[in-house]
């Protein structure tokens, strides 16, 4: 379209006098593409004193007409009517009549606009809702724990109802397939701790104690903590997303109507797989971290592997190892429960799926760290 042609299509209104009567004469394209211009023209016709008096609008000269043009014309006539004036539409082409007729019926209902609430009230409301949410989350957590407990009890009574295939499948996904990345990360962390230890301890000649630090830290705390955080991010998020999208597509409702228990079929195998996988991954991760620490001690600290192992033998006991391993299944349970209950909270939209997946990861990492703290106090008080 040349600019000249485009210009000639610009909608406008002018006045003309015919038979002693002022009329508005419309021209140009009254269409979506010119809607912004058209709105200005129509609003001007409502405020401009020269145009305001007209009681007739002649639509003969328009180039094109669509819903946008029809609605703005309707808006103009309605504004006139509201002021008690009349505006007759003349000479609108036959084929556009139906459209004008159609928009004549719409937007009749007054839409109520919600009153604005002040920022202070909204902030307070946010705090209130957050507290309520925390309470609801706690209830939900206990609920899920109970449902899983019930599913375990049912399974124990009828062992054949246990979904072994599904459990093995999830074990493969959250356990076996996670091994390479877990080994890599824990190996690097073990190495970094050892390097930092040598760098700082060397200043006061305490090189030997690096082995104690690496051994105790890795076996008691870091091994299980890092693995649990990795698993929460890797597997917890995928649990939430899977269960959430099944919820969205009514698959969970479908299971329920077939007389099948979604907890036993979907959630239990997943949580069981996590509870089995996390201790194993923790063990592998701890070994990899010790290996990384030993390697750095040899290459960076100049401590031969024989000495490292001998030192490690003196520094750590089975207790340290036990402390780490005991924590693992509990953390797995927390991750599993949070992931499943967040998945079940997903509503219909894609946005809510993303939101619950994020919440699931954030909450399970938080819970893992809180649990670790509680265990630290517990083990300290029983002298482990």
């Amino acid at each position, binding site marked *: 379209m040349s600019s000249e042609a485009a210009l000639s299509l610009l909608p406008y209104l002018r006045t003309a006098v015919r038979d002693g009567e002022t009329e508005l004469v419309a021209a140009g394209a009254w269409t979506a*593409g010119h809607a*912004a211009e058209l*709105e200005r023209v129509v609003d001007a016709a409502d405020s401009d004193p020269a145009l305001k008096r007209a009681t007739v609008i002649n639509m003969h000269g328009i180039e094109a007409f669509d819903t*946008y043009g029809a*609605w703005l014309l309707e808006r103009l006539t309605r504004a006139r009517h509201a002021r008690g004036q009349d505006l007759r539409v003349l000479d609108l082409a036959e084929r556009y009549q139906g*459209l004008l007729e159609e928009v004549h019926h*719409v937007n009749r209902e007054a*839409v109520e606009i919600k009153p604005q609430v002040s920022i202070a009230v909204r902030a307070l409301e946010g705090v209130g809702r957050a507290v309520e949410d925390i309470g609801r989350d706690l209830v939900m957590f206990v609920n899920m724990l109970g449902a899983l407990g019930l599913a375990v009890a049912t399974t124990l009574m009828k062992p054949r109802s246990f979904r072994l295939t599904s459990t093995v499948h999830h074990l493969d996904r959250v356990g076996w397939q996670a091994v390479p990345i877990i080994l890599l990360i824990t190996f690097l962390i073990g190495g970094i701790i050892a390097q930092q230890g040598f760098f700082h301890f060397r200043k006061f000649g305490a090189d030997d104690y690096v082995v104690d630090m690496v051994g105790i830290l890795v076996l008691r705390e870091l091994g299980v903590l890092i693995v649990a955080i990795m698993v929460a991010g890797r597997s917890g998020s995928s649990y939430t997303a899977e269960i959430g999208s099944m919820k969205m597509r009514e698959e969970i409702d479908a299971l329920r109507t077939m007389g099948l228990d979604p907890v036993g079929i979907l959630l239990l195998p997943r949580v069981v797989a996590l509870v089995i996988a996390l201790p194993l991954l923790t063990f592998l991760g701890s070994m990899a971290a010790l290996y990384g620490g030993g390697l750095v001690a040899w290459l960076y600290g100049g401590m031969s592997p024989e000495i490292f192992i001998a030192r490690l033998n003196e520094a750590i006991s089975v207790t340290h190892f036990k402390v780490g391993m005991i924590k693992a299944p509990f953390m797995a349970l927390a991750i599993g429960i949070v992931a499943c209950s967040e998945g079940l909270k997903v509503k*219909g939209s894609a*946005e809510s799926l993303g939101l619950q997946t994020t919440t699931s990861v954030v909450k399970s990492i938080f819970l893992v760290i809180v649990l670790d703290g509680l265990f630290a106090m517990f083990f300290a008080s029983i002298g482990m």
Partner: protein
Amino acid sequence: MQMVAQLDDEPAIRVRDLVVGFGDRVVLDHLDLDVRRGEILGFVGGSGSGKSVLMRTIIGLLPKRQGTIEVLGVDLARVGDDARRALERRWGVLFQQGALFSSLTALQNVQVPMREHLVLSERVMREVALAKLEMVGLTARDGDKLPSELSGGMTKRVALARALALDPELVFLDEPTSGLDPIAAGDFDELIRTLQQTLGLTVFMVTHDLESLDTVCDRVAALAEGKVIAIGPMSEMQRSSHPWMQAYFQGKRGRMLSRRLSAMET
């Protein structure tokens, strides 16, 4: 829309020698099709015969192996991005599942194309979007609902309102009445007919609904073995001798329909 009169002779969609396939499976095999301006064309075919593939190829969602497709006189394969976007403004698509954006309300869904393609004040955008919702038979109150709160029929209506948001010249409807009860389906057919008449639309409709083929479609095209095996008014289709056509239109449900039609004629 205003150009309809001048361009009547040129088809809205012209497909020539189209080949589309996946891997070594050829779905559309040297297919030809013309959709006239201002008509409602119903497109039928068995499940998996490639109806949706054809629709998706025409609107450019699937690549073609061979052939030309002209939509509203524009060959999408030959034009740049700007021309493509300009063309996309002139058509609307209703997907089978509605494909509403799940995090936006019904009203916002209708406003998406307006916001992207037009320069409009918030007021006009709101008013026209509400007008569109009312034109497809919803109320202003439904506008604030999220897609997850809408029933199947309402979802289709909102999706239709969104497809019509820019006052397109051409709309593609993929099984618009599937999943609706017969009353809702009948209403929907009538709605499409009314809108087609008031807005001067060309409608390309994939459907399995014999009723809507009969009541709203000007012409019906049948797809089998990767080709359009017949195209014409419903009455002609029922007389076709092609075995698939016989099975489709003379099957139990087709027979019931034609019996009722002949009863109505006498």
